[in-house]
């Protein structure tokens, strides 16, 4: 474990600007405003190799340069605080623990890309975090860190908070933009991408809370020192949200390069009640399920890429031997069915059909043909859905059919050795 990005969370009073400043808060912003041109800031972020922490792992500096190169008198910076991926609760730690750091990152982003307005889109399920943010913004306006001519410089920037209202898809950047515009949060066709045409058609930078919280650190210690954390391909640290059957659940900041085994057994104290581990789901409900044979997989973008899995939001869900894979897949697919925005057919219909088939198999009425059907539906959704929601919805299904195929067969034969899907008997 390490304390780099989350170093102040729980250590300072979240709304004390004095505490924050006593701990090098706003040093990065001062350096940026007084000593750096926007291009230099972008170069520094590029050099740091920071990649987005919201799920897609897109190179942050590159994204910033796209927005910066747009010629438009009005641009926006959006902080994606929708944190809807099941099993993910790390942005909340940053927002509640050190809101000034996230906001400092946003102001720097605004300066770098040439935006004067920011939005924080926070999920409706976090009303307390929203209150903290509202207070933090008021404090910063009073102190001259937000508003016109920040710290006496020519640069002006202000931030507005918008609430989500219980829609997972609104974490997807174009759906989020639709939601801020006052519409149902349905994903847009891409391209155009938000850096070219985002909020109200203007160039828009969307970054995750954790990505933005990295920014003040990178600019204060410099990209070179920052890269000493993590691995060659994955610089820095990651906040993991660990849930499920481990002894110590919670949010842990780790350096890239750590293995899942180290996370689960060294940091989280292994499994509760000495149960055996069955699988680990990496990246929340839209992530891959890995069997225990893969516990030595290193958390590193390139290494994961080779295995065709993503780190996603950094959620680590640990399932023990009592978990029925089909029951788990059923609840996962119910989630996606409920959250599908309904705009594209593969996602709207695919989730329903998968649930029907899974239920059939759980009820003991499944056949081998159902497995083929599941497979083709899953691939269809992955390849043809409009946005990441539908594309990633079948990931857990695909990976469990690959690594736990015997459990599907077992249910088709009419029994479940865990008994937890409710069909324990012959």
């Amino acid at each position, binding site marked *: 474990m390490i304390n780099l990005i989350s170093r102040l969370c729980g250590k300072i009073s979240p709304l004390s600007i004095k505490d924050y400043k006593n701990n090098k808060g706003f040093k990065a912003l001062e350096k940026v405003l007084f000593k750096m041109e926007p291009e230099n800031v972008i170069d520094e972020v590029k050099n740091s190799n920071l990649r987005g922490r919201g799920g897609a792992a897109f190179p942050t500096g590159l994204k910033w340069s796209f927005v910066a190169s747009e010629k438009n008198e009005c641009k926006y910076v959006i902080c994606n605080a929708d944190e809807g991926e099941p099993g993910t609760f790390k942005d909340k730690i940053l927002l509640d623990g050190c809101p000034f750091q996230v906001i400092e990152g946003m102001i720097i982003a605004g300066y770098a890309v040439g935006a004067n307005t920011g939005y924080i889109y926070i999920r409706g*399920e976090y009303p307390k975090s929203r209150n903290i943010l509202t207070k933090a913004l008021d404090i910063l306006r009073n102190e001259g860190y937000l508003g016109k001519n920040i710290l006496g410089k020519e640069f002006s920037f202000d931030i507005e908070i918008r609430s989500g209202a219980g*829609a997972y898809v609104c974490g997807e950047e174009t759906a989020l933009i639709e939601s801020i515009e*006052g519409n149902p949060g349905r994903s847009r066709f891409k391209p155009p991408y938000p850096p070219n045409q985002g909020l109200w058609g203007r160039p828009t930078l969307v970054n995750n809370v954790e990505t933005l919280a990295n920014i003040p650190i990178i600019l204060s210690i410099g990209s070179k020192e920052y890269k000493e954390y993590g691995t060659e391909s994955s610089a820095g640290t990651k906040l993991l949200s660990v*849930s*499920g059957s481990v002894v110590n659940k919670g949010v842990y900041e780790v350096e890239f390069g750590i293995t899942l085994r180290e996370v689960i057994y060294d940091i989280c104290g292994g499994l509760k009640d000495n149960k055996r581990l069955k699988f680990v789901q990496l990246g929340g409900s839209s992530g891959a399920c890995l069997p225990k044979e893969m516990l030595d997989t290193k958390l590193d973008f390139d290494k994961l890429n080779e295995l065709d899995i993503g780190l996603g939001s950094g959620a680590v869900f640990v399932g023990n031997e009592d*978990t029925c894979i089909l029951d788990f897949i059923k*609840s996962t697919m119910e989630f996606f069915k409920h959250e599908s925005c309904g705009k594209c057919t593969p996602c709207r219909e695919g989730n329903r059909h998968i649930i029907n088939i899974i239920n059939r198999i759980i009820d003991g009425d499944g056949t081998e043909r159902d497995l083929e059907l599941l497979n083709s539906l899953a691939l269809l959704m992955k390849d043809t859905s409009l946005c990441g929601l539908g594309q990633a919805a079948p990931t857990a299904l695909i990976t469990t059919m690959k690594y736990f195929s015997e459990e599907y067969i077992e249910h088709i034969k009419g029994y479940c050795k865990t008994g937890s899907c409710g069909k324990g008997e012959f």
Partner: protein
Amino acid sequence: MDFKKKVLDIIKNKGETSDKLLEILLEVQNKTKGKYLSEEALIIISNELKIPLSKVYGVATFYSMISTKKRGKYLVQICNSSPCYLNGGKMVTKTFEKLLNIKVGETTKDNLFTLEYTSCIGACDIAPAIKINDEVYGNLTPEKIKSLLNVLRKEDVK
């Protein structure tokens, strides 16, 4: 204060532009007894923001936190995403349904409790978790749920 005035105040406060629709809907729901949006509220908002009623309704029904059906004083939202579902979530649902004698999606006759499902509320480290109004409760057991309901019932009498 009469209802229309209350809604108009909220609209004025949030701003009368169409992009504020969701913020307004949430706030009006929050300030309405029964935590829902009545047809009357939707019509007022539609007229004031000059957005067709169909669209206001479309936005209201797209988001799961917004309801167009009256709810109880205590809105019990049970997390049914996998980390909770697999760690006692099923027990939580069963226990609430039994103790309140209603199914998920229903409200008790005394209008005190409504049971709903919610997707992950970011409390997976204390699974199984629920939300009652703005408060999160975790590590639930049948006993805890029982005493929680008793406390809320007593609070209501006060």
